[in-house]
């Protein structure tokens, strides 16, 4: 097992999961997952705890055997291969640095196991890449969290795996360090050009780093796409609520004319582009992101063609510097969130009567049969 050929390197190619399923007793953690991750991409599996994302990762690394389905690396079926024979490496959630070995030996571990004798230059290069060359002889326990994180990354990267798996790699770091490491990870990924598969519950982390995000829920992929795609045009209430914040208003489709869908909600007519609406009859959930919504004093003239909901009352206003966050209570009792950027306009006091309005092209329409709250509470819980 000392040569690279045994690890199945050289063929290269995409990571492909086909019908991948994992059951623990009667519980299905991962449910018929079909997924192709192109070589060289930075891919994020995003979901709340227990959605099956970590189980998926462990199956790719070989630490968990799938109940059904296959895993392909390029043209190779690696489903049956033991973890130590897969050209896949993991950055573990708690880093799992070997406490009895120093930094140098931790980084050299994988090379040595593959029978490579002369590791000096490679280890030095790798430590330079993560900018920790001066700590080579320290023990992991003598490093800070951020340093341990970089060593864990170096230890995995040095093997030049076909796929690098990152299991909540920044979860243990504080906010500032996390931002720094996000940029760092992105830089390293661009530099080495390997496929990174990143598992996280932090939507901001996923959006910052990944080219493609797959939002997972109950062992299935809810939606997949670029960060902008997912944010601007979520396909389900779960994605709309879990990824950022959304105002979701239940309504009924009145009709479709050309590429415009007309919806009634709370007795008011709203429109949205047909290509952003996932249903064309019956119940619909109309969504709009808080930062796209604007406030106008009651009775003031609105620009033509906007979607507007009248009769709202400001129930809360929080000034947070870059923006002011409002909660506006509609006559129906619903509360809408509105983020108004600080461009110098006047702050509306609680109790003020307002009209909320937005550009119809920024609305999205979701199938009305879904749970409107799906994913909302999860976001709060995992963001804590």
């Amino acid at each position, binding site marked *: 097992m000392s040569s690279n050929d045994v690890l199945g390197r050289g063929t290269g190619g995409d990571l492909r999961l086909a*019908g991948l399923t994992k059951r623990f007793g009667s519980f299905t953690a991962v449910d018929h997952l079909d997924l*192709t991750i192109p070589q060289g991409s930075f891919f994020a599996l995003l979901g709340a705890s227990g959605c099956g994302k970590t189980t998926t990762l462990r199956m790719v690394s070989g630490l968990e055997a799938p109940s059904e389905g296959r895993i392909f690396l390029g043209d190779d079926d690696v489903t049956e291969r033991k973890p130590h024979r897969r050209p896949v490496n993991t950055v573990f959630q708690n880093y799992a640095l070997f406490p009895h070995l120093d930094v140098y030996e931790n980084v050299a571990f994988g090379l040595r196991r593959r029978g490579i004798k002369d590791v000096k230059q490679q280890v030095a290069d790798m430590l330079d890449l993560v900018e920790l060359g001066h700590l080579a002889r320290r023990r992991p326990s003598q490093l800070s969290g951020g340093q341990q994180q970089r060593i864990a990354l170096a230890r995995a990267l040095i093997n030049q795996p076909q796929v690098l798996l990152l299991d909540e790699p920044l979860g243990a770091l504080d906010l500032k360090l996390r931002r720094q490491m996000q940029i760092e990870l992105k830089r390293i990924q661009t530099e080495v050009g390997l496929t990174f598969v990143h598992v996280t519950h932090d939507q901001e982390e996923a959006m910052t780093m990944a080219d493609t995000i797959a939002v997972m829920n109950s062992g299935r992929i809810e939606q997949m796409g670029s960060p902008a795609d997912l944010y601007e045009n979520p396909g389900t209430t779960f994605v709309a609520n879990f990824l950022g914040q959304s105002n979701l208003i239940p309504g009924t489709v009145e009709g479709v004319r050309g590429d415009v869908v007309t919806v009634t909600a709370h007795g008011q007519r709203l429109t949205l582009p047909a290509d952003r609406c996932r249903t064309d009859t019956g119940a619909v959930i109309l969504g709009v992101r808080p930062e796209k919504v604007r406030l106008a004093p009651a009775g003031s003239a609105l620009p033509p063609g906007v979607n507007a909901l009248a009769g709202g009352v400001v129930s809360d206003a929080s000034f947070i510097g870059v923006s002011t966050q409002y909660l506006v209570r509609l006559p129906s009792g619903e509360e809408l969130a509105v983020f108004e950027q600080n461009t110098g306009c006047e702050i509306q006091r609680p109790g003020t009567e307002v009209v909320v309005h937005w550009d119809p092209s920024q609305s999205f329409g979701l199938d009305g049969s879904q749970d409107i709250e799906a994913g909302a509470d999860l976001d709060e819980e995992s963001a804590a």
Partner: protein
Amino acid sequence: MSVSLQAPPAKSPVPQPPPAARRAGLLTPWILLLPGLLWLVVFFLVPILTSVGASVQTGNADQGYRLTWDWGNYGHGLSDYLPQYGHSLLYSVLCTVFCLLLGYPVAYCIAFRGGRFKSLLMALVVVPSFTSFLIRTIAWKTILSDNGPIVSVLNDLHVLNATTAMGWTVGNHVLASPAAVVFGMVYNFLPFMILPLYTSLEKIDPRLHEAGSDLYCDTFATWRRVTLPLSMPGVVGGTLLTFIPAVGDYINAQLLGNPNTGVVGQKIEDLFLRQTDGYPVGSAISVVLMAGTLILVLLYIRKAGTEDLI
């Protein structure tokens, strides 16, 4: 979109590891267990069961023993050696109680006030045990001897008169008395109490004390409501590690006691090693001691609610 959700391919059969590999996986623990367990069964379990058998035999060393189902050995054993059973139980319970009363404050003090001397202090608890316990027990003979300082101080304070009146010492001496036996046992088994207590106390987050006092507990109430419940595994472990060896101990009774402080262990040794036909009765009183200890220990563990301790 650079990534596409693809249609599921035809279902492949569930991969199963080859049967041989699975069998090997099931066998591994037994291969690891077998030598050790065999040793325990042959040299621990079988002897105890043989002794149960031997305890209902009759005969002597010259003519050999026959299995006669003579339960009289138990009757003899129990009635003849009742005082020794009483002493063993009394001394070991007293020893456990004193060890707990002395050991808890020490473990507490090291765990929470020890600072950077914690491990040094714990080393000091353990280090004496590396000198043969017999030599250390005999050293008490020097310290507690009649012309030593302790006896003269106790005499001046008339303490020995009081303890002699209570039957715990004899005359103006400390040695060769029940008190000396218990004293020696406490000395010998105290480290076994302190170690588990320290281990469980050391795990307690000191911030819990602050939380306790923040929630209106004074020092004692914090200990009673927070520390003590959390250190119960240590208390249970320590009392077991003290009581079990103490109940079978006869070293202290022999070295520091007198003919009236006889314990069961002495009698068992006597019957087995010095009397020619004491073997059935010796077996009987061993079985009773073993069963009694086991019942007490199991009752205690059940009462303390820490069955997962073992």
